[in-house]
């Protein structure tokens, strides 16, 4: 394995990892959800808020393939509309915590000293609490709404990125090319932007990709606890919570639950493949198994 020439590994790196069935499966599922999110308004399903109490809590049938909820709303329509809340907010969450965490982590790692101490002790403070509990406290203090849930999750999510980023920057800032850049007259922020960041961005992307599933779960979790989506917004977490109230109507919780499951698994499969593709330390193993 160690005898494989570096050039060959480099040329095969991306395609092989991406050609794995898991990656393709994940990509297809995710793509399908994105298409659904875009097409929701034009599919022409019954509106997710359209209520007809006469047909409340009906089991799946031809008219309502996923059944109806306690107000007679179509669970299929609500599940498909639910992706409009989950996907964009997950993107906002991951992008937000990636940007905040990376910035703070990079600054802490590069500058060191007091700045490092202050930023990382704040991060430790956040780490000291279980994620969902801290998010609950913040969301409860701000009042239930999806926007507040996103703020709460941003507050608990950035330290992960900051810690990884700091470690990467610490490793990179002693490298000769960085030192050379500084000696050529680059200021700390130019050096960070030009020499360090491009060399540490790949692992951060992998972390972000793997975090998508996590964030969707946390967001659904907050809604499940009544601290996220406000009725009547169709949101998977709150739909599962409604289903738990009506335990004999299994379809209420099952379909939104499956939706959460499929999106989270899709993101994780893609994230895994991305890691395999971008991480040189395990690229050899991947290559070996797929050859």
């Amino acid at each position, binding site marked *: 394995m160690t005898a494989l020439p570096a050039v060959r590994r480099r040329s095969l790196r991306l395609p092989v990892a991406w050609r794995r069935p898991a990656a393709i499966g994940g990509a297809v599922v995710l793509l399908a959800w994105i298409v659904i999110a875009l097409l929701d308004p034009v599919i022409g399903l019954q509106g997710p*808020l359209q*209520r007809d*109490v*006469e047909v*409340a*809590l009906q089991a799946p049938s031809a008219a309502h393939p996923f059944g109806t909820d*306690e*107000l007679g709303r179509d669970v299929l329509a609500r599940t498909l509309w639910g992706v409009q809340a989950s996907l964009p907010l997950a993107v906002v969450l991951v992008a937000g915590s990636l940007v905040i965490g990376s910035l703070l982590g990079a600054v802490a790692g590069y500058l060191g000293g007091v700045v490092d101490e202050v930023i990382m002790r704040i991060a430790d403070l956040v780490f000291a609490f279980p994620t969902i509990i801290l998010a609950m406290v913040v969301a409860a203090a701000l009042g*239930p709404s999806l926007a507040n849930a996103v703020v709460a999750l941003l507050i608990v999510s950035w330290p992960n990125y900051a810690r990884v980023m700091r470690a990467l920057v610490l490793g990179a800032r002693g490298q000769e090319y960085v030192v050379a850049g500084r000696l050529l007259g680059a200021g700390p922020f130019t050096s960070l932007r030009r020499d360090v960041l491009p060399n540490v961005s790949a692992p951060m992307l992998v972390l972000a990709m793997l975090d998508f599933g996590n964030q969707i779960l946390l967001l659904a979790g907050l809604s499940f606890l*009544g601290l996220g989506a*406000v*009725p*009547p917004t169709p949101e998977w977490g709150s739909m599962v919570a409604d289903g738990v*109230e*009506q*335990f*004999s*109507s299994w379809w209420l919780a099952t379909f939104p639950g499956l939706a959460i499951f499929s999106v989270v698994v899709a993101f994780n499969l893609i994230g895994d493949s991305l890691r395999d593709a971008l991480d040189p330390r395990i690229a050899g193993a991947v290559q070996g198994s797929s050859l």
Partner: protein
Amino acid sequence: MNHLPARLTAMTATAAAVALIVTGCSSSSGGGQSTSSKTLVVDNAFDLKTSDPARAFELTGSIVDKAIYETALTFNGSDVTKPVPQLTTYTMSDDEKTITLTLNGKHVFSSGNPVTIDDIVWSYKRVQGIAGNPSFLLSNLSTGKPFAITKTSDTTMTITDTQPNPALPTILPNPSLGVLDSKTLEGHGGTTGKDDGAESYLNATSAGSGPYQLSSYNVSSKVVFKPNPKYVGDKPAYGRVVLQNVKGPSQKIDVQGGSAQLALNLNSQQVNGLASGSIKVVKTPSANVGYLWLNQNAGVSGGLTNQPDFVKGVRHAIDYKAIQTIAGSGSTQPGGIVPSQFLGSLESDENNTTDAAAAKSDLAKYQGRSITLSYPTDAALDGVSFADMAQSVQSDLEGAGVKVKLNGLPIATLLDSFRAGKLQAGLMYWGPDFPDPSDYLTFSPGEGLGLRAGWTKDMAPEVTKAKEAAIAAQGDARAAAYQAWQKAANADGAFVPLVQAAKYAVTNGVSGVTQNAIWTVDLATIE
């Protein structure tokens, strides 16, 4: 090792045989009451805290205390409009301030002590003295001044309020006013003040004259009753009653499988299609009334909820049938704020009817404007989610052109803001303190609940006049006076009564189950 010596085997067998004979004899000698050797198992989702009547004011506590204790007056079955004698008979004074109780035949506590007027006076004073949750029953609701309780002879006593109080007889049947054996309890730390120490005795032994007494008591798992041999009424059909703490879904399995004969906490979805063979579903409207309030205070109303045409429009926009469907079969729409089973309830009111055309014209001025509708997220109206009802109202009002922002709050937070009169509109419910319409006068302008909705006396003089007429009415005129008050409130008011959900009692192989708004079920009448 595998073979016991023959002699040892023989000895063991003999010992076993002797033991069997002895236990057989003792059980046959103890099982003299052949009619009452049956066991009744009742499933209930416990909210039990204590079985001491002076401290208990929970649903489960009332079931327990109803079985153990007798009260001065009581109700027959589910009819809570007419109090009937139990330990005493009663007469009301002409000014309706004083009720006189006269001992009604002979009643005996489980200890063998006879029930005396002293016991009743002692028990009532104990409720007042301990100042626990039920103590408000024996004090004036508006001033908080305790009723004067006086022994007037060996067979009579009086209870006197400072103001006319025609509800007095309907208050006394509450199981929290169960009469205790004062002589026994005084020997176990019982007093009529805050220093009372009889709670633990009452939670282990009980000291009542009712059909049952405690056999074992566990506040979180089950309460077991055995008959009170000294009970003077009809002997209960069951020799052992187990009231056990079981959650709704498991109750369904228990009653279907026959391991429980009665389940008390199934919701409308769970009872759907359950009745078959020996399984029967008894439906009774709950006495809890779910209502919508619209704040009349100009500062809180946002210029909407205090406008008479807006209020009228909302009353007509709501699809009451849809809310009943959500609440489940057997639920009803009360005509006024007084629940349908109480004296003075209103069957229906034209102001509270669904009329989309009228709603559109009343709300024409308010198209596109928005109100915030608050509701409790962690409390339900007899199992019916407020969120579901709120979404139904939201969709009705949006159909009539008014936007509704839903604001689900934990009930503690909601009550804080509601009591401070800060919420523009919302959904809540009112459970009766005692089954008399006077308990609902708080929904009048200038009264407790009225003020929560920013409704002051000067805003609705008609309603205030009708309220005063209702207070002044006596005897048979009361019902009509309370109906007139509700009609006035519906024409003007801040409150829209929405729904009384149904309560379901599911039985398997037993009869005689009648639901009562005060004590849920009387275990002694079940056969």
